[in-house]
């Protein structure tokens, strides 16, 4: 008589084979990280040096100097007194509640992550916009990056590079980069066909078309992508703190394990304050450049 048990119970792989597969994959990756870990780590050394330098700059400079330069930067990009005033008030409160140093650490890592995401993401987005095949190749990767739980890709990163700032940055960038890529691609694809055709008809080469027409016209969309990226990077701060990234995430992590409600709340609010400042500043900047494009009052 035939065995019909597979009808009632899902026919699964037997335990031994599954174990074999896991062992094999884990072993291979472990060997790989033992073999190449140092090489890869040294590859990221310049990034680490920059991270440390930037964090030191923010943490060790006198607080008023940092506050003045941040406010000035916000004012220059947004041209809004209201926002600049908000920055001063929130940073004073953050400092008063004893979170200055952690906030500076978070600020430095978020800034570096954002810059990295832009530097990597915009060119990838451009390549995607150029070529439908690249787009269909990159899109599923982006889907995986956005939906795969962050903890899962923390594991190989930590295995390869240990814990610390660099793996933290890599994890944050992986999580936060998809919006820049997607919206750069979208923005370029949405550029008015006739304007692009005009550029071509006047003999513009691909570089002239990209720099003179596509990127400037796509910039509002790209800015929206950058804005999203910043928000997502800030959201990763707590998770990144699990692999040793110092900053506002660590106290939050501590308060989860110890049930310190107020500590968690304060640090959470500091993250929110940073997020709002980043968001409003980048949006105001995007709006300003758009207004200019439509010939508003600006010169």
């Amino acid at each position, binding site marked *: 008589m035939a065995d019909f048990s597979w009808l009632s119970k899902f026919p699964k792989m037997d335990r031994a084979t599954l174990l074999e597969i896991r062992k094999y994959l884990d072993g291979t990756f472990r060997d790989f990280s033992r073999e190449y870990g140092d090489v890869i780590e040294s590859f990221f050394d310049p990034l680490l040096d920059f991270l440390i330098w930037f964090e030191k700059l923010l943490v060790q400079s006198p607080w008023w100097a940092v506050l003045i330069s941040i406010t000035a930067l916000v004012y220059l990009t947004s041209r809004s007194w209201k926002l600049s005033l908000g920055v001063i008030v929130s940073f004073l409160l953050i400092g008063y509640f004893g979170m200055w140093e952690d906030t500076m650490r978070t600020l430095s890592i978020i800034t570096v992550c954002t810059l990295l995401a832009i530097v990597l993401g915009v060119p990838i987005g451009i390549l995607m916009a150029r070529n439908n095949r690249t787009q269909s190749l990159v899109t599923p990767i982006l889907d995986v990056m956005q939906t795969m739980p962050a903890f899962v890709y923390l594991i190989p990163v930590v295995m390869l590079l240990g814990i610390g700032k660099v793996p933290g940055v890599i994890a944050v960038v992986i999580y936060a980069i998809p919006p820049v890529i997607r919206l750069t691609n979208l923005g370029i694809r949405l550029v008015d066909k006739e*304007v692009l055709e*005009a550029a071509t*008809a*006047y*003999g*513009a080469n691909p570089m002239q078309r990209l720099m003179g027409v596509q990127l400037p*016209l796509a910039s509002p969309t790209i800015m929206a992508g950058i804005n999203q990226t910043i928000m997502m990077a800030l959201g990763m701060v707590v998770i990144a703190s699990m692999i040793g990234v110092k900053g506002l995430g660590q106290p939050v992590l501590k308060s989860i394990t110890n049930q310190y409600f107020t500590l968690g709340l304060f640090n959470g609010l500091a993250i929110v304050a940073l997020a709002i400042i980043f968001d409003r500043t980048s949006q105001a900047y995007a709006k300003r450049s758009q207004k200019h*494009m439509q010939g508003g009052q600006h010169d």
Partner: protein
Amino acid sequence: MTNESPTEPLIQIKDLFKVFGKKPTKVMPMVREGLSKDDILAKTGHTVGLKAINLDIHKGEIFVIMGLSGSGKSTLIRHFNRLIDPTEGQILVEGIDVMKLNTKELEQFRRNKMAMVFQRFGLMPHKSVLENVAYGLSVQGIDKATRNAKATQWLETVGLAGYEEQYPSQLSGGQQQRVGLARALCTDAEILLMDEAFSALDPLIRSEMQDQLIELQKELHKTIIFITHDLDEALRIGDRIAILKDGNLIQVGEPVDILLNPADDYVEAFVKDVNRPRALTVETVMKPPAYRLTADTIGEALKQMKRIPANYAYYVTDEGFQGVVCQEALEDAVKTDKEALMEDFKVEEMTPISQDALLESIIPATMESDFPLPVIDSDGDLQGELSRAHLADVLSDFYTDGADDSTDEEKQNSTKEDK
């Protein structure tokens, strides 16, 4: 149609086919066999855009390509500068096969040989009006001072001085298209491609722009390829018109040919709606002058007069048209002095009409006059006459000039000279 130009055509399109779809070359045999557009679409999923197009375009003419939407006219104009590549066929500009240019050569070709004006203007919204006009030059790598100076000049020519620092979105449609036109002129390219350039403008502005284009053309003598779906526009500005339907070239000819000898029902249906008095000039419908007197003396004149069936004639000297002479008046004059000179004879004054005038403008004069009106050219020489009966004929819908070829040839020989 090309007999009026002794030189080589500036642009030649030879046996051009365009099929849209995944594998156009595989469909080509079917297209050549003459299967219809719909059959090919149903069988292969490919769309036939253009079919066996042959065109010669001469230096300095305004060549209008006319067709309804979907006729392939916008596809065709994009072949001239290879914004679209043909499936098969040759495009020769000044004898150079554009299809053989590599990327770099093609860029150079687009920079120097052709400039394009677009239906929805195609201006860069993030650049100022001045930067837009100078765009062609900036692509060529010309320094800022030079290109701005030139752009300022062209802006002035199209009547937009003072708008340099504005952005396109701050201008009206007509102004934006002027910027588009200035941008095209700024590169000094010999050939202008105008893709439904005035179609997006409202009628008043459109006719203003047409006038401006005609004015500019008088000074610049560019070769202009103009796409439109509006036959009135085509007749107004075109030196020659090509009519396109479903990717086929139906008829190529001068405006009058199209108007008076439509090639098929399709063209005829178009022509029916045309405002004839506004589209036709006197020259295109006038008859050769029937009766003219050239005598020196009155006696001589009377002799000539008696030979003709009418009792009036146009008196013409070496200086051109002088006036109308009646038989009765001559008979009276002969009684006093047969040998008197015609110069001293008082001819009846009659205001002649110019052969370049639009019919529209001479309707009242023609209708009021008992005699056919004399038609003169710019030197004052008598070229023809226009009777009110004939004018009425021309203006009625059912008139076609099919039987009468002699006038056609005559005007073909003379149109070019005064343009």
